[in-house]
């Protein structure tokens, strides 16, 4: 990333100062995660007698085993699985329907084309949070409460992904479509053999963003999964806090918090380049 001009970059003491500030910034930003990790490796008495230690203890295996296989209301392993299904379902579903609709909008002229286009565009403006009660009623009406389809479908229509693919398809040279037509290839052959393979970087970048979007959903699963067996991990953590005066089981809750952030963190850090690209693209 950095360029090798070197004239205006800091050297000597200034350079060390810059590094020092940077490290300080990283430490401050990391502190909440570090503390959660420490809390997930110590015993309950060590936490309820403040101040808690700032260095990990030896209860790592015990706490994580307790969280994964018994949890508080439901084993965390179950919630992890539900989150995985929801996140992958939303990401894959959005990508598929957006690829198809963008292909239709770019490569065909058909009745109501611009009506549909504007219809999709308008969904940009309607976050779930502002229409929760009626959407909840629709999903309840379909009998989709406590189901994966209820978790996935209402969040699947995305104008962003459709626009992104539309933008990209418009940059595919016309010669390719022309050649395909001359060769007598049907539109779907062209779509599968040319368009989809050419979009694979966009698809991957979008997958990273959408996976995190799906994984981190909170309000929607909170409303429609009343059965603990269907809880996702992000909304399930809050359910682990006792109501009333009971003391929360902090080590297990904190182990669950760490488990809840591992999959999205792995996705973001390991696919950093795609992630940054996806971010920039999807906000344009």
């Amino acid at each position, binding site marked *: 990333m950095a360029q090798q001009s070197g004239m205006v970059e800091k050297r000597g003491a200034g350079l060390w100062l810059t590094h020092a500030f940077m490290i300080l910034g990283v430490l401050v930003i990391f502190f909440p995660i570090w503390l959660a990790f420490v809390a997930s490796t110590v015993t309950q008495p060590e936490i309820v007698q403040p101040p808690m230690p700032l260095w990990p203890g030896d209860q790592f295996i015990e706490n994580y085993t307790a969280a994964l296989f018994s949890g508080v209301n439901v084993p965390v392993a179950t919630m992890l699985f539900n989150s995985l299904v929801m996140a992958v379902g939303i990401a894959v579903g959005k990508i598929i329907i957006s690829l*198809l609709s963008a292909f239709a909008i770019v490569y065909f002229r058909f009745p109501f084309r611009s009506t549909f286009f504007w*219809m999709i565009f308008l969904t940009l403006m309607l976050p779930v*949070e*502002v229409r929760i009660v009626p959407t909840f009623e629709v999903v309840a009406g379909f009998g989709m409460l406590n189901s994966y389809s209820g978790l996935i479908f209402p969040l699947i229509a995305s104008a962003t992904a459709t626009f992104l693919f539309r933008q990209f398809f418009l940059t595919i040279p*016309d010669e390719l479509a022309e050649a395909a037509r001359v060769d007598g290839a049907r539109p779907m052959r062209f779509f599968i053999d040319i368009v989809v393979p050419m979009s694979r970087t966009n698809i991957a970048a979008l997958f990273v963003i959408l996976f995190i979007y799906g994984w981190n959903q909170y309000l929607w699963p909170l409303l429609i999964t009343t059965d603990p067996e269907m809880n996702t991990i992000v909304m399930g*953590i809050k359910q682990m806090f006792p109501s009333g005066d009971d003391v929360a089981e902090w080590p297990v809750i904190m182990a669950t918090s760490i488990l809840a952030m591992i999959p*999205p963190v792995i996705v973001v850090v390991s696919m950093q380049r795609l992630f940054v690209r996806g971010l920039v693209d999807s*906000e344009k």
Partner: protein
Amino acid sequence: MEKRVTFRGWMLPLLLIAPQVLISAVFFFYPAGQAIWQSLFIPDPFGLSARFVGLGNFEFLLGDKFYRAAFLTTAVFSILVTVCSMVPALFLAVLADRLIKGSGVYRTMLIWPYAVAPAVAGVLWLFMFNTRVGVISWYLGQLGYDWNHVLNGGEAMGLVVVASAWGRISYNFLFFFAALQSVPRSVIEAAAIDGAHFWRRFFTIVLPLITPTAFFLLVVNVVYAFFETFGVIHTITAGGPQQSTTILVYKVFADGFVGQDLGSSSAQSVILLFVVGLLTVIQFKYIEKRVHY
């Protein structure tokens, strides 16, 4: 922009676009329509019938001091979240931009919080400031400051702001860093040769050049504070104490699902629809500008 080469037929494209249109219709347009429709009625306590009240729900809301308080709370909250997430991000990005080596490592580490869900971030910050076991609240106590966000509205607001801004620092950092890297080095070097020191260069050259990015982030962060911080507020304060952290989106939820006041909740949804519409228009106006820039 349109393609010159297109395929013939209209059955296939309709079939291709059908899934998205169907899902949008069922889960977006119908519920939005319902929200508008329900906002014109007051249901009876048993939900069996509803009385048409026209714009009565809206009139009531605009006169309601709790609703007006939620508006004010939302404004304060969004401004604070935006400032607290953009200023540190810009500072860190400026530092990272000055480094020839190692900025990649810092970037990797700073990305982490972005992946943490707002609701999980809420739990992490709640843990640090918990009145019984929190480490930071304990040390504050040692310094003689009695932290209690459960009773003190100002402290509750501070906590939800910091917890909401935390993950956004990563996001803003990435955009600021990319913007800073794209500022032409030759311009900065020319200024350096003319004797402008670092801060002078920053305020007269770099900052104006990254203004488009800053403005874009401003809008995006306000949208975030409005609509995506529900998880933070629900986990940390549940809107309390005395509604001091009840933002508009939280009130739609609290009135609709907890209070079962469907008419009012729908009317609030409709008002929020206008707010979202306005923010989207601002966003697009700006993006148009950026394209022509």
